[in-house]
Protein backbone atom coordinates (compact mmCIF):
# COMPACT_ATOMS: atom_id res chain seq x y z
CA UNK A 1 0.00 0.00 0.00
CA UNK A 2 1.73 3.13 -1.18
CA UNK A 3 1.06 6.73 -0.29
CA UNK A 4 1.66 9.80 -2.45
CA UNK A 5 2.62 13.26 -1.23
CA UNK A 6 3.41 16.55 -2.99
CA UNK A 7 5.72 19.56 -2.54
CA UNK A 8 5.35 23.26 -3.19
CA UNK A 9 8.10 22.78 -5.80
CA UNK A 10 5.60 20.63 -7.75
CA UNK A 11 7.20 17.25 -7.15
CA UNK A 12 5.34 14.11 -6.18
CA UNK A 13 6.70 11.31 -3.97
CA UNK A 14 5.29 7.82 -3.77
CA UNK A 15 6.42 5.86 -0.72
CA UNK A 16 6.52 2.04 -0.66
CA UNK A 17 8.06 0.91 2.61
CA UNK A 18 11.23 2.98 2.87
CA UNK A 19 11.59 3.41 -0.92
CA UNK A 20 10.37 6.60 -2.59
CA UNK A 21 9.70 7.27 -6.27
CA UNK A 22 9.89 10.93 -7.28
CA UNK A 23 8.71 12.91 -10.28
CA UNK A 24 7.17 16.23 -11.22
CA UNK A 25 3.45 16.86 -11.05
CA UNK A 26 1.05 17.10 -13.97
CA UNK A 27 0.71 20.81 -13.18
CA UNK A 28 4.50 21.26 -13.37
CA UNK A 29 4.70 19.36 -16.67
CA UNK A 30 1.96 21.54 -18.14
CA UNK A 31 3.68 24.71 -16.98
CA UNK A 32 7.04 23.62 -18.38
CA UNK A 33 5.63 22.70 -21.77
CA UNK A 34 7.43 20.24 -24.04
CA UNK A 35 10.24 18.58 -22.08
CA UNK A 36 13.34 18.04 -24.23
CA UNK A 37 15.99 16.97 -21.74
CA UNK A 38 16.12 15.28 -18.35
CA UNK A 39 19.19 14.64 -16.23
CA UNK A 40 18.59 12.12 -13.43
CA UNK A 41 20.93 11.26 -10.55
CA UNK A 42 23.10 8.13 -10.55
CA UNK A 43 22.50 5.22 -8.23
CA UNK A 44 24.45 5.50 -4.98
CA UNK A 45 24.24 9.27 -4.71
CA UNK A 46 22.99 10.51 -1.34
CA UNK A 47 20.66 13.48 -1.34
CA UNK A 48 19.20 15.50 1.51
CA UNK A 49 15.64 16.76 1.64
CA UNK A 50 15.43 19.90 -0.51
CA UNK A 51 18.72 19.17 -2.28
CA UNK A 52 19.12 19.45 -6.06
CA UNK A 53 18.69 15.99 -7.51
CA UNK A 54 17.73 16.24 -11.19
CA UNK A 55 17.31 18.71 -14.03
CA UNK A 56 14.39 19.05 -16.40
CA UNK A 57 14.54 21.25 -19.49
CA UNK A 58 11.66 22.27 -21.64
CA UNK A 59 11.95 24.06 -24.94
CA UNK A 60 11.89 27.27 -22.92
CA UNK A 61 14.16 26.81 -19.90
CA UNK A 62 15.99 24.55 -17.47
CA UNK A 63 14.62 23.83 -13.99
CA UNK A 64 16.06 21.97 -11.01
CA UNK A 65 14.20 19.09 -9.46
CA UNK A 66 14.74 18.80 -5.71
CA UNK A 67 14.64 15.72 -3.53
CA UNK A 68 11.44 16.17 -1.48
CA UNK A 69 12.86 13.76 1.11
CA UNK A 70 16.40 12.61 1.88
CA UNK A 71 17.77 9.21 0.90
CA UNK A 72 20.12 7.26 -1.32
CA UNK A 73 19.41 7.08 -5.05
CA UNK A 74 18.75 3.51 -6.16
CA UNK A 75 17.80 4.30 -9.74
CA UNK A 76 17.33 7.18 -12.16
CA UNK A 77 14.75 6.73 -14.91
CA UNK A 78 17.10 5.95 -17.81
CA UNK A 79 14.21 5.91 -20.30
CA UNK A 80 13.89 9.70 -19.99
CA UNK A 81 17.28 10.22 -21.66
CA UNK A 82 15.89 8.98 -24.98
CA UNK A 83 12.26 9.89 -24.41
CA UNK A 84 12.03 13.06 -22.33
CA UNK A 85 8.51 13.54 -23.73
CA UNK A 86 7.36 10.82 -21.31
CA UNK A 87 7.39 13.55 -18.67
CA UNK A 88 4.61 15.35 -20.54
CA UNK A 89 2.75 12.21 -21.55
CA UNK A 90 2.64 10.57 -18.11
CA UNK A 91 4.24 12.84 -15.50
CA UNK A 92 2.91 10.94 -12.49
CA UNK A 93 3.56 7.48 -13.98
CA UNK A 94 6.13 6.49 -16.68
CA UNK A 95 7.66 9.95 -16.41
CA UNK A 96 9.10 9.35 -12.90
CA UNK A 97 12.59 10.77 -12.32
CA UNK A 98 14.39 8.77 -9.62
CA UNK A 99 14.00 6.40 -6.67
CA UNK A 100 15.39 6.74 -3.17
CA UNK A 101 15.88 4.20 -0.38
CA UNK A 102 16.30 4.82 3.32
CA UNK A 103 13.59 7.43 3.35
CA UNK A 104 12.44 8.84 6.69
CA UNK A 105 8.67 8.44 7.02
CA UNK A 106 8.38 11.49 9.28
CA UNK A 107 9.95 13.65 6.56
CA UNK A 108 7.49 12.23 4.05
CA UNK A 109 4.50 12.86 6.33
CA UNK A 110 5.31 16.58 6.47
CA UNK A 111 4.61 16.96 2.74
CA UNK A 112 1.27 17.94 1.24
CA UNK A 113 -1.49 15.43 0.62
CA UNK A 114 -3.17 15.33 -2.80
CA UNK A 115 -6.05 17.47 -1.51
CA UNK A 116 -3.65 20.01 0.02
CA UNK A 117 -1.59 20.20 -3.15
CA UNK A 118 -4.64 20.66 -5.38
CA UNK A 119 -5.71 23.51 -3.10
CA UNK A 120 -2.18 24.98 -3.29
CA UNK A 121 -2.19 24.89 -7.10
CA UNK A 122 -5.62 26.49 -7.22
CA UNK A 123 -4.27 29.41 -5.18
CA UNK A 124 -1.35 30.09 -7.56
Amino acid at each position, binding site marked *: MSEVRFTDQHEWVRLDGDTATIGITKHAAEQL*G*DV*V*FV*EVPEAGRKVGAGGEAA*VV*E*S*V*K*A*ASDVYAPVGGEVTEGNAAL*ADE*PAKVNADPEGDGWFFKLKGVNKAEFDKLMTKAQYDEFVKGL
Partner: protein
Amino acid sequence: MTDSTETLRKTPLHALHMELGAKMVPFAGYDMPVQYPTGVLKEHRHTREKAGLFDVSHMGQAFLGGDNPAKALERVTPADVQGLKEGMQRYGLLLNDGGTIIDDFMFTHLAGEKDLYLVVNGATKEGDFAYMADKLKGQATLTPKPGRALLALQGPAAGNVLEKLSPGIATMTFMQVRRANVAGCPAIVSRSGYTGEDGFEISVEGKDVEKVARALLADPDVLPIGLAARDSLRLEAGLCLYGHDIDETTDPVEANLVWSIGKRRKEAKDFPAAEMIMDEIANAVSRKRVGILPTGRAPAREGTQIADKRGNVIGHITSGGFGPSLNAPVAMGYIDVQFAANGTEVDLIVRGKPNPARVAPMPFVPNRYKRK
Protein backbone atom coordinates in the same frame (compact mmCIF):
# COMPACT_ATOMS: atom_id res chain seq x y z
CA MET B 1 12.19 48.92 -17.38
CA THR B 2 9.08 47.22 -16.19
CA ASP B 3 7.32 44.07 -17.18
CA SER B 4 4.04 45.03 -15.59
CA THR B 5 1.27 44.13 -17.97
CA GLU B 6 -0.49 47.51 -17.80
CA THR B 7 2.42 49.18 -19.55
CA LEU B 8 2.72 46.55 -22.27
CA ARG B 9 1.54 47.46 -25.72
CA LYS B 10 -0.81 45.25 -27.70
CA THR B 11 -0.75 44.42 -31.37
CA PRO B 12 -4.06 44.62 -33.28
CA LEU B 13 -4.23 40.81 -33.05
CA HIS B 14 -4.11 40.69 -29.24
CA ALA B 15 -7.78 39.70 -28.90
CA LEU B 16 -7.33 36.97 -31.51
CA HIS B 17 -4.33 35.55 -29.62
CA MET B 18 -6.44 35.40 -26.46
CA GLU B 19 -9.30 33.76 -28.37
CA LEU B 20 -6.85 31.15 -29.71
CA GLY B 21 -5.73 30.35 -26.16
CA ALA B 22 -2.22 31.76 -26.45
CA LYS B 23 0.08 32.00 -23.47
CA MET B 24 1.19 35.64 -23.46
CA VAL B 25 4.56 37.03 -22.37
CA PRO B 26 6.19 40.47 -22.45
CA PHE B 27 8.42 40.82 -25.51
CA ALA B 28 9.86 44.00 -27.00
CA GLY B 29 7.44 46.02 -24.89
CA TYR B 30 4.41 44.12 -26.20
CA ASP B 31 2.18 41.46 -24.71
CA MET B 32 2.93 38.70 -27.22
CA PRO B 33 1.97 35.03 -27.73
CA VAL B 34 4.86 32.75 -26.72
CA GLN B 35 2.90 29.60 -27.60
CA TYR B 36 -0.59 28.39 -28.37
CA PRO B 37 -2.29 25.26 -26.99
CA THR B 38 -0.62 23.31 -29.82
CA GLY B 39 2.70 23.53 -27.93
CA VAL B 40 6.15 24.66 -29.00
CA LEU B 41 7.44 21.40 -30.50
CA LYS B 42 4.36 20.85 -32.65
CA GLU B 43 4.24 24.52 -33.66
CA HIS B 44 7.86 24.33 -34.77
CA ARG B 45 7.42 21.09 -36.70
CA HIS B 46 4.14 22.21 -38.25
CA THR B 47 5.89 25.28 -39.65
CA ARG B 48 8.54 23.09 -41.31
CA GLU B 49 5.94 20.61 -42.59
CA LYS B 50 2.97 22.82 -43.55
CA ALA B 51 2.62 26.51 -42.70
CA GLY B 52 2.71 28.65 -39.59
CA LEU B 53 1.26 32.12 -39.06
CA PHE B 54 3.21 34.55 -36.86
CA ASP B 55 2.09 37.94 -35.58
CA VAL B 56 5.17 40.14 -35.91
CA SER B 57 3.29 43.43 -35.69
CA HIS B 58 5.63 44.57 -32.91
CA MET B 59 8.30 45.10 -35.53
CA GLY B 60 8.93 48.62 -36.74
CA GLN B 61 7.80 49.62 -40.22
CA ALA B 62 8.67 52.90 -41.91
CA PHE B 63 9.10 54.62 -45.23
CA LEU B 64 12.20 56.61 -46.10
CA GLY B 65 11.57 59.42 -48.55
CA GLY B 66 13.64 62.16 -50.13
CA ASP B 67 15.55 62.92 -53.31
CA ASN B 68 17.65 59.79 -53.05
CA PRO B 69 16.67 57.75 -50.00
CA ALA B 70 18.87 54.82 -51.06
CA LYS B 71 21.96 56.99 -51.12
CA ALA B 72 21.01 58.52 -47.79
CA LEU B 73 20.44 55.14 -46.11
CA GLU B 74 23.94 54.06 -47.12
CA ARG B 75 25.26 56.55 -44.56
CA VAL B 76 24.17 54.20 -41.76
CA THR B 77 24.45 50.76 -43.38
CA PRO B 78 27.19 48.96 -45.33
CA ALA B 79 24.57 47.21 -47.50
CA ASP B 80 24.30 48.05 -51.18
CA VAL B 81 21.03 49.98 -51.06
CA GLN B 82 21.40 51.90 -54.32
CA GLY B 83 22.02 48.67 -56.23
CA LEU B 84 18.79 47.05 -55.05
CA LYS B 85 16.52 46.41 -58.01
CA GLU B 86 12.87 47.39 -58.10
CA GLY B 87 10.55 44.85 -56.53
CA MET B 88 13.29 43.46 -54.30
CA GLN B 89 14.13 43.33 -50.60
CA ARG B 90 17.52 43.01 -48.91
CA TYR B 91 19.00 42.46 -45.44
CA GLY B 92 21.11 45.21 -43.90
CA LEU B 93 22.90 46.13 -40.69
CA LEU B 94 22.37 49.49 -39.02
CA LEU B 95 25.83 50.52 -37.81
CA ASN B 96 26.93 53.19 -35.39
CA ASP B 97 30.00 55.31 -36.08
CA GLY B 98 32.17 52.76 -34.27
CA GLY B 99 31.07 50.04 -36.68
CA THR B 100 29.10 47.97 -34.20
CA ILE B 101 25.53 46.87 -34.77
CA ILE B 102 22.57 49.03 -33.69
CA ASP B 103 20.12 46.68 -35.39
CA ASP B 104 19.54 44.45 -38.37
CA PHE B 105 16.71 45.28 -40.74
CA MET B 106 15.13 44.70 -44.15
CA PHE B 107 14.88 47.37 -46.82
CA THR B 108 12.69 47.25 -49.89
CA HIS B 109 12.56 49.00 -53.23
CA LEU B 110 8.92 48.73 -54.27
CA ALA B 111 8.36 48.73 -58.03
CA GLY B 112 7.62 52.22 -59.33
CA GLU B 113 8.03 53.83 -55.90
CA LYS B 114 10.69 56.24 -54.83
CA ASP B 115 10.40 55.77 -51.07
CA LEU B 116 12.17 52.83 -49.46
CA TYR B 117 10.14 50.56 -47.19
CA LEU B 118 11.94 49.48 -44.01
CA VAL B 119 11.27 46.83 -41.36
CA VAL B 120 13.33 46.91 -38.15
CA ASN B 121 13.22 44.94 -34.90
CA GLY B 122 10.46 45.66 -32.38
CA ALA B 123 12.67 46.09 -29.31
CA THR B 124 14.91 48.60 -31.08
CA LYS B 125 12.51 50.46 -33.35
CA GLU B 126 12.26 53.75 -31.43
CA GLY B 127 16.04 54.00 -31.14
CA ASP B 128 16.58 52.97 -34.76
CA PHE B 129 14.11 55.51 -36.10
CA ALA B 130 15.52 58.32 -33.95
CA TYR B 131 19.06 57.41 -35.06
CA MET B 132 18.13 57.26 -38.74
CA ALA B 133 16.13 60.49 -38.60
CA ASP B 134 19.07 62.25 -36.95
CA LYS B 135 21.80 60.82 -39.17
CA LEU B 136 19.88 61.34 -42.40
CA LYS B 137 18.52 64.79 -41.54
CA GLY B 138 18.37 67.03 -44.59
CA GLN B 139 18.88 64.08 -46.96
CA ALA B 140 15.94 61.81 -46.29
CA THR B 141 12.73 61.84 -44.30
CA LEU B 142 11.78 58.88 -42.18
CA THR B 143 8.08 58.24 -41.66
CA PRO B 144 7.36 55.47 -39.13
CA LYS B 145 4.14 53.55 -39.75
CA PRO B 146 2.99 52.48 -36.27
CA GLY B 147 -0.50 51.83 -37.63
CA ARG B 148 0.67 49.00 -39.84
CA ALA B 149 0.63 45.38 -38.74
CA LEU B 150 2.88 42.57 -39.96
CA LEU B 151 2.19 38.86 -40.41
CA ALA B 152 4.64 36.13 -41.38
CA LEU B 153 3.33 33.04 -43.13
CA GLN B 154 6.11 30.47 -43.16
CA GLY B 155 6.51 26.91 -44.36
CA PRO B 156 6.37 24.76 -47.50
CA ALA B 157 2.58 25.18 -47.86
CA ALA B 158 2.75 28.99 -47.60
CA GLY B 159 2.75 29.55 -51.39
CA ASN B 160 -0.37 27.45 -52.00
CA VAL B 161 -2.15 28.95 -49.00
CA LEU B 162 -1.50 32.56 -49.94
CA GLU B 163 -2.26 31.96 -53.61
CA LYS B 164 -5.88 31.24 -52.63
CA LEU B 165 -6.19 34.65 -50.95
CA SER B 166 -4.05 36.56 -53.43
CA PRO B 167 -4.14 34.99 -56.90
CA GLY B 168 -0.80 35.21 -58.71
CA ILE B 169 1.27 35.65 -55.57
CA ALA B 170 2.82 32.16 -55.79
CA THR B 171 4.95 33.22 -58.77
CA MET B 172 7.04 35.43 -56.49
CA THR B 173 10.54 34.24 -55.60
CA PHE B 174 12.77 34.72 -52.55
CA MET B 175 13.26 38.38 -51.60
CA GLN B 176 10.79 39.69 -54.17
CA VAL B 177 8.28 42.24 -52.86
CA ARG B 178 5.11 43.63 -54.32
CA ARG B 179 1.92 45.41 -53.41
CA ALA B 180 -1.03 43.05 -53.66
CA ASN B 181 -4.46 42.47 -52.19
CA VAL B 182 -4.65 39.69 -49.62
CA ALA B 183 -8.16 38.59 -48.64
CA GLY B 184 -9.30 41.85 -50.23
CA CYS B 185 -6.99 44.04 -48.16
CA PRO B 186 -4.17 46.15 -49.61
CA ALA B 187 -0.83 44.68 -48.54
CA ILE B 188 2.90 44.78 -49.08
CA VAL B 189 3.93 41.17 -49.56
CA SER B 190 7.52 39.93 -49.54
CA ARG B 191 8.66 36.37 -50.14
CA SER B 192 10.89 36.18 -47.11
CA GLY B 193 10.87 35.43 -43.42
CA TYR B 194 12.98 34.32 -40.52
CA THR B 195 12.54 30.58 -40.21
CA GLY B 196 14.71 29.22 -43.02
CA GLU B 197 11.54 28.08 -44.79
CA ASP B 198 9.85 29.42 -47.86
CA GLY B 199 7.21 31.95 -46.90
CA PHE B 200 5.90 35.48 -46.92
CA GLU B 201 5.75 38.56 -44.79
CA ILE B 202 2.50 40.46 -45.21
CA SER B 203 2.24 44.09 -44.12
CA VAL B 204 -1.28 45.50 -43.86
CA GLU B 205 -3.05 48.31 -42.07
CA GLY B 206 -3.77 47.47 -38.44
CA LYS B 207 -7.52 47.65 -39.09
CA ASP B 208 -7.24 44.91 -41.75
CA VAL B 209 -4.88 42.47 -40.05
CA GLU B 210 -7.46 40.46 -38.15
CA LYS B 211 -9.42 39.82 -41.33
CA VAL B 212 -6.26 38.66 -43.12
CA ALA B 213 -5.10 36.55 -40.17
CA ARG B 214 -8.50 34.84 -39.86
CA ALA B 215 -8.57 34.13 -43.59
CA LEU B 216 -5.12 32.51 -43.37
CA LEU B 217 -5.98 30.54 -40.22
CA ALA B 218 -9.11 29.19 -41.94
CA ASP B 219 -6.82 27.16 -44.18
CA PRO B 220 -6.37 23.67 -42.70
CA ASP B 221 -2.62 23.83 -43.44
CA VAL B 222 -2.11 26.90 -41.24
CA LEU B 223 -1.63 27.01 -37.45
CA PRO B 224 -0.83 30.07 -35.33
CA ILE B 225 2.75 29.93 -34.06
CA GLY B 226 4.22 31.69 -31.03
CA LEU B 227 7.51 33.36 -30.23
CA ALA B 228 9.10 30.26 -28.69
CA ALA B 229 8.84 28.28 -31.93
CA ARG B 230 9.88 31.36 -33.90
CA ASP B 231 13.06 31.37 -31.82
CA SER B 232 13.86 27.67 -32.32
CA LEU B 233 13.08 27.94 -36.05
CA ARG B 234 15.42 30.90 -36.59
CA LEU B 235 18.12 29.27 -34.46
CA GLU B 236 18.04 26.09 -36.55
CA ALA B 237 18.23 28.33 -39.62
CA GLY B 238 21.38 29.97 -38.19
CA LEU B 239 19.78 33.42 -38.15
CA CYS B 240 20.80 36.07 -35.61
CA LEU B 241 18.45 37.43 -32.97
CA TYR B 242 19.24 41.06 -32.27
CA GLY B 243 20.11 41.74 -28.64
CA HIS B 244 21.45 38.21 -28.26
CA ASP B 245 23.67 37.20 -31.18
CA ILE B 246 24.40 40.72 -32.35
CA ASP B 247 24.35 44.05 -30.52
CA GLU B 248 26.37 47.21 -30.04
CA THR B 249 29.35 45.19 -28.78
CA THR B 250 29.64 43.16 -32.00
CA ASP B 251 30.65 44.24 -35.48
CA PRO B 252 29.73 42.70 -38.85
CA VAL B 253 32.99 40.76 -39.20
CA GLU B 254 32.82 39.16 -35.75
CA ALA B 255 29.14 38.44 -36.35
CA ASN B 256 30.00 36.62 -39.59
CA LEU B 257 27.67 38.94 -41.51
CA VAL B 258 30.21 40.28 -44.01
CA TRP B 259 27.98 38.91 -46.78
CA SER B 260 25.57 41.74 -46.01
CA ILE B 261 28.19 44.34 -46.94
CA GLY B 262 27.82 45.31 -50.59
CA LYS B 263 30.75 44.67 -52.95
CA ARG B 264 30.59 48.25 -54.17
CA ARG B 265 30.58 49.46 -50.58
CA LYS B 266 33.70 47.43 -49.73
CA GLU B 267 35.51 48.96 -52.69
CA ALA B 268 34.34 52.48 -51.89
CA LYS B 269 34.88 52.08 -48.13
CA ASP B 270 32.11 54.62 -47.63
CA PHE B 271 30.21 53.18 -44.65
CA PRO B 272 30.53 53.68 -40.87
CA ALA B 273 33.91 52.53 -39.49
CA ALA B 274 34.82 51.23 -42.96
CA GLU B 275 38.57 51.36 -42.28
CA MET B 276 38.26 49.22 -39.16
CA ILE B 277 35.84 46.78 -40.76
CA MET B 278 37.89 46.39 -43.95
CA ASP B 279 41.00 45.87 -41.84
CA GLU B 280 39.20 43.14 -39.90
CA ILE B 281 38.11 41.47 -43.13
CA ALA B 282 41.70 41.52 -44.43
CA ASN B 283 43.50 40.65 -41.20
CA ALA B 284 40.96 38.62 -39.26
CA VAL B 285 39.26 39.34 -35.98
CA SER B 286 39.85 37.99 -32.49
CA ARG B 287 36.48 36.24 -32.23
CA LYS B 288 33.75 35.03 -34.50
CA ARG B 289 30.11 33.95 -34.35
CA VAL B 290 29.84 30.23 -35.09
CA GLY B 291 27.36 27.40 -34.86
CA ILE B 292 27.79 24.95 -31.98
CA LEU B 293 26.34 21.44 -31.80
CA PRO B 294 26.41 19.80 -28.37
CA THR B 295 27.30 16.09 -28.59
CA GLY B 296 24.87 15.01 -25.86
CA ARG B 297 21.25 15.85 -25.25
CA ALA B 298 21.67 18.74 -22.81
CA PRO B 299 20.83 22.14 -24.31
CA ALA B 300 23.33 24.94 -23.66
CA ARG B 301 21.51 28.21 -23.02
CA GLU B 302 22.51 31.81 -23.68
CA GLY B 303 25.43 32.81 -21.47
CA THR B 304 26.95 29.30 -21.27
CA GLN B 305 30.75 29.42 -21.35
CA ILE B 306 32.63 27.69 -24.16
CA ALA B 307 35.95 26.14 -23.06
CA ASP B 308 38.79 24.47 -24.93
CA LYS B 309 39.73 20.90 -24.07
CA ARG B 310 42.14 22.18 -21.40
CA GLY B 311 39.40 24.10 -19.63
CA ASN B 312 40.30 27.62 -20.79
CA VAL B 313 37.29 29.83 -21.52
CA ILE B 314 37.32 30.65 -25.24
CA GLY B 315 33.86 32.08 -25.78
CA HIS B 316 30.21 32.02 -24.83
CA ILE B 317 26.85 30.93 -26.19
CA THR B 318 24.55 33.75 -27.35
CA SER B 319 21.54 31.61 -28.40
CA GLY B 320 20.98 28.02 -27.46
CA GLY B 321 18.22 25.55 -26.96
CA PHE B 322 16.61 22.48 -28.39
CA GLY B 323 16.18 22.15 -32.14
CA PRO B 324 12.92 20.27 -32.70
CA SER B 325 13.62 19.52 -36.38
CA LEU B 326 17.14 18.24 -35.61
CA ASN B 327 15.76 16.55 -32.48
CA ALA B 328 18.95 17.69 -30.77
CA PRO B 329 20.30 20.72 -28.97
CA VAL B 330 21.63 23.59 -31.11
CA ALA B 331 23.44 26.79 -30.28
CA MET B 332 25.44 29.67 -31.64
CA GLY B 333 27.97 31.86 -29.95
CA TYR B 334 31.21 33.79 -30.13
CA ILE B 335 34.50 31.91 -29.97
CA ASP B 336 38.17 32.88 -30.19
CA VAL B 337 38.98 32.82 -33.87
CA GLN B 338 41.65 30.08 -33.58
CA PHE B 339 38.86 27.73 -32.47
CA ALA B 340 36.31 28.87 -35.05
CA ALA B 341 36.96 26.20 -37.71
CA ASN B 342 34.12 23.76 -38.33
CA GLY B 343 34.62 20.50 -36.48
CA THR B 344 36.70 22.00 -33.65
CA GLU B 345 35.96 20.12 -30.44
CA VAL B 346 35.08 22.25 -27.45
CA ASP B 347 33.33 21.92 -24.11
CA LEU B 348 30.23 23.79 -22.97
CA ILE B 349 30.15 24.42 -19.25
CA VAL B 350 26.61 23.44 -18.28
CA ARG B 351 25.78 23.40 -14.55
CA GLY B 352 29.50 23.42 -13.79
CA LYS B 353 30.32 20.39 -15.92
CA PRO B 354 32.04 20.27 -19.33
CA ASN B 355 29.66 18.95 -22.00
CA PRO B 356 31.39 18.05 -25.28
CA ALA B 357 30.35 19.96 -28.41
CA ARG B 358 31.78 20.92 -31.77
CA VAL B 359 31.84 23.96 -33.98
CA ALA B 360 29.42 23.31 -36.84
CA PRO B 361 28.34 25.03 -40.04
CA MET B 362 25.03 26.92 -40.12
CA PRO B 363 22.25 26.66 -41.03
CA PHE B 364 21.69 23.53 -38.95
CA VAL B 365 18.59 22.79 -41.02
CA PRO B 366 18.94 23.50 -44.77
CA ASN B 367 17.19 26.63 -46.04
CA ARG B 368 14.24 25.99 -48.31
CA TYR B 369 13.76 29.43 -49.84
CA LYS B 370 11.98 29.61 -53.19
CA ARG B 371 14.80 30.86 -55.35
CA LYS B 372 13.02 30.32 -58.67
